[in-house]
């Protein structure tokens, strides 16, 4: 799936800058460990289209990407992070109160 210039993979998103989840590239992909679709697994962690994420850290040697979602932090394998298409979040004033609270 090609990524428009304004949209990037989460794996490439700058650390500390809020981004909005725009799309999940391979949302039908099944999890080999559990049977749920990728989109369902992500939804269970609150990673649904439209949510604001803050990339916090990329672990070295291809380790997971840690993102902030509200008050929670979620670690995502790089493979997963590459499936998430994001773009820069609008001005914080445009976010919902709960998103600002985090």
């Amino acid at each position, binding site marked *: 799936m090609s990524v428009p210039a304004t949209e990037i993979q989460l794996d490439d998103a700058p650390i500390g800058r809020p981004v909005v989840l725009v799309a999940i590239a391979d949302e039908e992909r099944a999890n080999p460990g559990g*049977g749920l679709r990728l989109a369902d697994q992500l939804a269970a962690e609150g990673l649904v289209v439209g949510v604001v994420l803050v990339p916090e850290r990329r672990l070295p040697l291809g380790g997971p990407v840690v993102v902030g979602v*509200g008050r*929670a932090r979620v670690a995502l*394998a790089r493979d997963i992070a590459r499936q998430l298409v994001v773009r820069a979040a609008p001005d914080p004033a445009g976010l*919902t109160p709960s998103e600002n609270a985090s």
Partner: protein
Amino acid sequence: MNCSPADAIGPADAAPGADAVPTIALVGRPNVGKSTLFARATGRYAEASNAPGTTVGGARRRVDVAGRAVDLVDLPGTLTLTAPVGEDTPFWSMLLDARPDVILVVADAGDMARHIPLALACRDLGLPIVIAANLTDEAEARGITLDTGRLSQLLAAPVHRTSGRSGLGVADAVRAATRLGARRVAVRSGTSSPRSTIPARCYPGGVEGAVDRCAAELGSLRSLGAAAAVDDTPDTDSLGGLVSAGAISARGAATLHLAAMVDPERWAIGRLWAGQVVARTAGAATSRSLAERLGAWSIAPWPGIPLFVAITLGVLLAMMAMGSVLSGLLTMAWQATASPAIKTVVAAAVPNATVGHALLWGLDDGVLSMLAVGIPYILTFYVLLALLEDSGYLTSIAVLTDRVLGTLGLSGRVSIPILAATGCNVPAIYGTRLLTSRRERVLASFLITMTPCSARIAVVCGALVPFAGVGPALAAFGVIASLTLAGGLLANKLVPGRQAPVILELAPIRRPVLGHVARKAWWRFESFIRTAMPIMVVGSIVLGLLYETGAIWRLTVVLDPVMVGWLGLPSVAGIALVFAFLRKELALQLLATLAIVQLGQGAASIGSFMSHGQLFVYAVVTAVSFPCIATLSALTSELGRRTALAMSGATIAIALLAGGLIARVIGIA
């Protein structure tokens, strides 16, 4: 936007003679303090693991609430109602198996946006719900206040601020749930009429329309009394059956069936409602708390990796140091008190000396083995593991080591159990419950059985250091480590399936509550004793009978071709290895004892009848081969008999293959 209570549903499919005790099911996301709240409400800790695949049922306890008996059921933490628990069972199936009359949804008062979706999903089932806005103390410390009145309006359900740790509000929440549960029981028993309500529309029109159509189809199945499928989706059979039985509403079944469509809407509502009910008090600190900073440090390469190394080494050293001291004390106490008494009773009750001695193998030595290994090492490990779990640090370790362990098909969560295995394999195998899939548990357990525990480390050191020196002992450990790594890589190739890429919510770092840690550790230890003690005692008696009747010597006929022919070891070494199945540390003591019986007093020192090369092969084969009886028991309990036996067979094959090759390289066979 406001949602009414769920549509009224008919009486549940109560079993004949079912009593009128309401059942309250506790449901919540992982790490929300649900089990602590359960413990606070019932006075007893019960483990319901957050790791799918490890929990087969919730913990149920009957308590008295304002003079009324009520059953509380603690279920494992879940992210959604459709998330799998175990191999194929969705969480909702486990929830409904508990036959709840009311659901007590435990949510994080400081992070309602992430917890409202699960509350909505529970409410959609058509069962009454009560919200316990838990961890209130933590939220308030962060300057977060929750408008419970408004949230109650939005969810159309009672909302109570609670803190499982301090007990704040727990009784009120349980009382509210009991009232709703009692009302439903009255409906079920026909002494009260169901309250019919019209469900408000929470979700966008398209989603509501799809839910209505699906509910109508499931409802028509109900009216026909059938449990047939609406379409090809596998779970509609069981959903139709549940609607037919009145366990959930047709709308509830439809929202389960259409979870992929409804869940994103629940998250949108969660964010919206959280914005309406959560406020930060003026002047509250916006900087990160110490716990939040610790959480960030714990996953950074610096200082996260040195911290991880220090903590894991600390756990290992603490387990070995405390284990060694406690083991010595318990052994002394047992030999001074219980052992003489048992011997006296057995001698008086069993006239046959051979049978009497065999019984003592189990009742005296077998029980002592459990006490000398179980309490000192396993209980100590469980306390340390519970401390790490309660602090929230385990998920940080999982993230930090995920990439490295990924080469073995494992996630980072396995690092703690594997390190613990160097103390004792048994708690390490139980520790794999932290893992998220059966494949990971199988791979981790296999790696654990090949990891030398303290007893096997003692055998390697005891066999080689006094007779061959430190160099050969280090070389033996190098060979064992290489075999373990090779075994892990091979298992990753052979065990079907792929490694699940990590999607893991990091638990917040918290100060552990000692009472909670103690209860959790003791609960796990009790489970271990119940499982392992009978096997240990019976296994010891069987081995005792073999020894006392002399039948053990006939084993040499079977073992010699392998022991003598392939490994180049003396005949007596095979018997010692068989006995080491009981306790690995016996491999050395018994080798000397049996050698005296077979070869005379001159064989008291194993160095007198075995060459350095033979000692090297014996040490490696003992360290890698067949797990001890307690480990086999743990493997059987956790993974099933077939998997346990397959793993044991694989370790024997690897040990014998490597031992034979080493014997040929060093020229002893």
